């Protein structure tokens, strides 16, 4: 029976609770919803879904699954149970194996099957037998459990080996068993038999066995000129030559060799899995004090808030330029780094976070990043700000550390399109979860917290989710660096805030942050060396006004503002005056305004505006002062909006042409002076009213939600027939049939639709299937063709 059908039946027989557990473990099975159990089973056998499911398996689960795949054969009806596996898996009891098989079955990675015929007759066995679901072999790859392929497969892979196989066998008397082998298939069987015998390995010289030991974990190796070194029957001292000539290594091409499965098994003492890794590696032992952790985390939280808010202000004053290739260039980064008083890695993080939170957005017209939600951001409370940073960081597919110099990156520009990794969000979550797990497991003393290093996370993940760990490896270090900079980790240990985020406990987190973040201050110390010291986190409004009046200096929790004539003039430009500045400072100064500062303000303001600049449409100049005075009083000249700025000069709001027209009407003869041609560059106005809103962070909902699961169950249960040949399951079933035909080298009857919509039934031999296409051999025309899977509407074994 087809594995999909078998699985569908098995799933329909499960209780609702079992199904709920399945959906929770493999949410992609019902997103989007499925119409019936057949479709559900088909989806469970789909490649992508299987890949995801495999990533969630722990090392012992994967080991058992791989062993089952290697010991069973669907076409021959050879299923497996704990009993068979006990021979293949070391260090395992029947009980453990049964338990792990049940878990795999629960995950719909294997399904219940009939016992093999030999067992069937010996009735009374109540052991459960399983088969892996269709396509699992394909998804697991060519080398499950790190073992190579059989000789028979290798003869079909390597033409060279097929030609040589008979010679190899005939040169080894023990393998040929006094018969002269002619055909490569027969040779492959002979080798298969011989290599599994202990004598085969024992006959190898010690050096050759040393070479073989390098293949214990992975069956493929690089050997230069591999094919030329296969010389059956010739004496040789070279261990590799010996192995190749005796068929214990098989050349794949001229550069690579493979260790055939029987040899690999023999090396492992006949076991597919030499030892089942039941226990996770121990949690790390290094600790740090909770005081240090708290200090580091609070420091990081304070700093990241300062950076992001600083960037919001900076970007709202001047949009951030990008390179033509995308991303923020070195020069712009340096400018921002100076403005933020940070180091460049911090700026990179601030940029990415600001973009992820939605404070800055890319303006496509100008290719600049603009602060579209800066005001909204600055109005948020600090706990709320951090919460949003944390949530945005967890979910963003962008990886800031790729652009950080410290991580050996720095090749990428921050905010460049290449800084994206689809896995990033999943990796972060998983890394933090693992860090939390490790901290929870380790028994740290009072006042101590466990230090979780990248290496610890890596080791644990390689046990807990070996297939995922491979994908995580590249991002892990960067994730930990970022997590430390944001405050998820402090002094190497996961922080209270960090674990609250992992739990999705946003409410608790809010309360925690309210408690731990210091209150903002609204008092400053003004000093005679013309500085203002803000002893802590200043209220944003106050900080902005102070930053207008004076230049901020120093990095850290406190900011020093230095007053100078230039900084005060900047404030005067912005509309302040001496009285407003003095009043503002006096209101916030802890101990009054020192005399030198008061003097500086008065002095600067007093001499501000000695040169004034204004805008005019045109000027009217004449040496005849009386004429100009007359013009000023002329009623019909009022429309020009005249102002006298000197006895001989008037300015007007009107353009020179308009002014000339009016003056001509008054009987004057003005000449237009074309030597002044002001080109006024208009500045773009700041962000409009339709600025995007900052999204509010929510703990990520469990996908799928409880409601979705219940709705799905209702649909499934309503279905009368277990296996309706529904639309969704059909292609999967067809593919399964095709694959079976490929394996068994049998012909199929295909109902194919051509481009015009005409359907024809043909009998063909499928050769291979991949990426939505089937390669078929047409025995009638003796040619090969490639068909699209979606054009095949029906498949039947011929």
């Amino acid at each position: 029976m087809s594995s999909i059908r078998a699985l569908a039946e098995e799933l329909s027989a499960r209780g609702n609770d079992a199904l709920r557990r399945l959906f929770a473990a493999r949410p992609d099975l019902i997103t989007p919803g499925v119409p019936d159990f057949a479709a559900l089973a088909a989806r469970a056998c789909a490649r992508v879904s299987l890949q995801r499911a495999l990533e969630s398996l722990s090392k012992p689960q994967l080991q058992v699954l791989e062993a089952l795949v290697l010991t069973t054969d669907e076409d021959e009806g050879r299923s497996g149970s704990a009993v068979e596996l006990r021979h293949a898996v070391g260090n395992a009891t029947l009980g453990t194996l049964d338990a792990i098989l049940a878990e795999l079955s629960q995950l719909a990675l294997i399904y219940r099957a009939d016992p093999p015929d030999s067992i069937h007759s010996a009735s009374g066995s109540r052991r459960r037998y399983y088969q892996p679901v269709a396509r699992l072999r394909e998804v697991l790859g060519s080398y499950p459990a790190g073992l190579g392929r059989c000789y028979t497969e290798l003869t079909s892979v390597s033409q060279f080996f097929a030609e040589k196989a008979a010679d190899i066998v005939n040169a080894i008397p023990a393998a040929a068993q006094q018969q002269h082998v002619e055909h490569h298939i027969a040779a492959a069987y002979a080798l298969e038999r011989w290599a599994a015998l202990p004598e085969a390995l024992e006959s190898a010289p010690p050096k050759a066995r040393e070479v073989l030991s390098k293949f214990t974990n992975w069956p493929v190796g690089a050997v230069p000129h591999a094919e030329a070194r296969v010389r059956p029957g010739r004496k040789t001292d070279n261990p590799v030559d010996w192995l190749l000539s005796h068929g214990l290594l098989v050349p794949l091409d001229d550069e690579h060799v493979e260790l055939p499965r029987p040899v690999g098994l023999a090396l492992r003492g006949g076991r597919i899995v030499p030892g089942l890794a039941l226990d996770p590696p121990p949690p790390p032992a290094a600790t740090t004090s909770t005081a240090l952790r708290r200090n580091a985390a609070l420091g990081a939280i304070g700093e990241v808030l300062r950076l992001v808010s600083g960037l919001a202000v900076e970007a709202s004053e001047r949009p951030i330029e990008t390179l033509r290739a995308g991303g923020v260039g070195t020069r712009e980064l340096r400018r921002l780094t100076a403005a933020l008083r940070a180091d460049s890695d911090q700026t990179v993080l601030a940029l990415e976070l600001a973009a992820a939170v939605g404070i800055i957005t890319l303006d496509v017209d100008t290719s600049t990043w603009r602060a579209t939600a800066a005001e909204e951001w600055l109005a948020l409370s600090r706990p709320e700000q951090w919460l949003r940073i944390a949530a945005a960081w967890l979910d963003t597919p962008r990886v800031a550390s790729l652009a950080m110099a410290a991580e050996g990156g720095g090749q990428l520009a921050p905010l460049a399109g290449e800084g994206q990794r689809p896995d990033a969000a999943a990796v972060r979550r998983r890394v933090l979860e693992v860090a939390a797990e490790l901290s929870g497991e380790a028994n740290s003393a009072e006042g101590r917290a466990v230090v979780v290093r990248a290496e610890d996370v890596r080791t644990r993940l390689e046990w807990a989710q070996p297939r995922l760990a491979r994908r995580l490896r590249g991002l892990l270090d960067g994730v930990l660096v970022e997590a430390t900079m944001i405050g998820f980790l402090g002094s190497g240990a996961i922080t209270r805030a960090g674990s609250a985020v992992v739990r999705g406990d946003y409410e608790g987190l809010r309360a925690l942050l309210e408690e731990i973040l210091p209150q903002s201050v609204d008092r400053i110390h003004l000093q005679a060396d013309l500085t203002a010291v803000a002893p802590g986190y200043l209220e944003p409004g106050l900080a902005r006004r102070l930053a207008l009046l004076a230049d901020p200096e120093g990095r850290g929790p406190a900011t020093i503002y230095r007053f100078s004539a230039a900084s005060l003039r900047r404030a005067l430009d912005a509309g302040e005056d001496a009285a407003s500045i003095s009043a503002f400072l006096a209101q916030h100064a802890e101990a009054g305004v020192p005399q030198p500062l008061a003097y500086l303000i008065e002095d600067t303001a007093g001499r501000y505006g000695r040169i004034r600049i204004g805008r005019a449409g045109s000027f009217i100049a004449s040496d005849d002062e009386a004429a100009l005075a007359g013009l000023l009083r002329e009623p019909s000249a009022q429309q020009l909006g005249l102002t006298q700025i000197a006895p001989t000069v008037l300015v007007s709001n009107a353009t020179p042409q308009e002014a000339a027209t009016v003056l001509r009407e008054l009987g004057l003869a003005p000449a237009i002076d074309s030597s002044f041609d002001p080109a006024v560059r208009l500045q773009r106005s700041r962000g409009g009213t339709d600025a995007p809103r900052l999204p509010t962070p929510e703990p990520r909902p469990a996908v799928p939600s409880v409601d979705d699961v219940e709705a799905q169950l209702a649909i499934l249960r309503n279905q009368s027939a277990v296996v309706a040949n529904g639309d969704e399951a059909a292609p999967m079933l067809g593919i399964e049939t095709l694959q079976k035909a490929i394996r068994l080298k049998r012909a199929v009857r295909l109902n194919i639709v051509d481009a015009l919509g005409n359907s024809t039934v043909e009998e063909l031999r499928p050769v291979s299937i991949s990426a939505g296409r089937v390669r078929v051999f047409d025995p009638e025309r003796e040619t090969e063709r490639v068909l699209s899977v979606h054009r095949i509407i029906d498949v039947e074994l011929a």
Partner: protein
Amino acid sequence: MSDGPLIVQSDKTILLEVDHEKATEARHAIAAFAELERAPEHVHTYRVTPLGLWNARAAGIDAEKVLDTLLRYSRFPVPHSLLIDVEETMSRYGRLRLEKDPQHGLVMRTDDYPVLEEVMRAKKIAPLLGPRIDGETVVVHSSERGQLKQALLKIGWPADDRAGYVDGTPHPIALEETGWSLRPYQRLAAENFWAGGSGVVVLPCGAGKTLVGAAAMAQSSTTTLILVTNTVSARQWKQELLKRTSLTEDEIGEYSGSVKEVRPVTIATYQVLTVKRGGLYPHLELVDQNDWGLIVYDEVHLLPAPIFRMTADLQARRRLGLTATLVREDGREGEVFSLIGPKRYDAPWKDIEAQGYIAPADCVEVRVDLPREERMAYAMADDADKYRLCASSETKTDVVERLVARHANDQLLVIGQYIDQLDEIGERVNAPVIKGSTSVKERQRLFDAFRAGELNRLVVSKVANFSIDLPEAAVAIQVSGSFGSRQEEAQRLGRLLRPKADGRAARFYALVARDTLDQEFAAKRQRFLAEQGYAYRIVDAADLAKD
């Protein structure tokens, strides 16, 4: 978080809120490893430097204690990177030790094999080392002890010098504590120094550094070489030693420009030692060819470069540095550390305050407006002439006149750079002018008269101003120019201006022409003086009468 008085910044500065109730306590705690950088009225700034941390290590303070201090007194979280940095930096001191080996002589030893491997590969260090004895020990050429220490400090692995010292020629010296006794902190400083071998004692002006030196000499009881900044200081030392110790006139020699005596205790000036003739320093042999048991360096922060070179070759002799500050204008604090030794004693701040060292003079900057013609002349002048034009403005002379009239009964100095301007002022206020061309005898006469109060106003040029025997005054008016470096300026101000008899603070006027280069320079001075804790005001010349 605690409500501490410190804010630790990630740029490695520490801000101290002076008015906080725990400020004094915290100040004491951080003084061991951080250097005071700025001390304006409300918030003082300290800086954590590798040298400061190594000094602390040499004084037996470990990283844990430093971290604990920071965490305990800090109001906000301490940047984690700084904590790691402190730990890392402090752990570097003493991983390499210089020791005396009975068989191989001077050796460098470590327990940390890779560190030795690293430094042996450094280009500048390899030639200073001899053959390697084993994994952890390497022979050091004894002549390169100082060079090696300098080079090691430069690459960040300061060595702990435990190789000991030569004894020197014995010569009995004893303190004669009759009618006086060493103050406890002086005794402690001398003891700390002796226990540490070599090093620097930091004491504020007037805290009796000479006595610490004398105590160290008594402890050593060997021939001693004392290096001082100038002749006046040499004579002061001599007087003090005669008064406080068993040494007699015959036992103490002066080695200066005018006298060249070599006696069991010899006091030499930096200047004479650094005289260069034909590319050689003829007087340096004084140091080399005598078997001194102790060398005392007065005012280490002013030690000139050739003396450093000389000191590098003297590593086998005990060295005592005395100073009021470890901060050097030229940034050579590292050489003081590696060649003379780590800080062995630092006086608590409270003593400095008690000495009246800080918060002395009242500084007033008087802004004068240049008249129209002068402004035009200034605007059109070449850059080279601009400063002279604005600094020697006519209007300043008027203001000086008014100020002199106002302080008619005070001892008053007018200081300036441009002779024409000074001559005119001298004439207007009826005061003698001392300039470069004034004979030494005449200068001495005028100074003596001023000191005695027979003369209550003097006009001195910048040249004269640099002479060390400038008398003290209650009021100083600076019309142009500035005192050398900022550091020197603050120190001179402190020395020059003593509080008046009735307790009123001395006053320092600086006349500054508005909107000119003069004002720019003044702004820098204002910042520095305010940072040093001087009271500072700015007044318009027109408002002077109201002041």
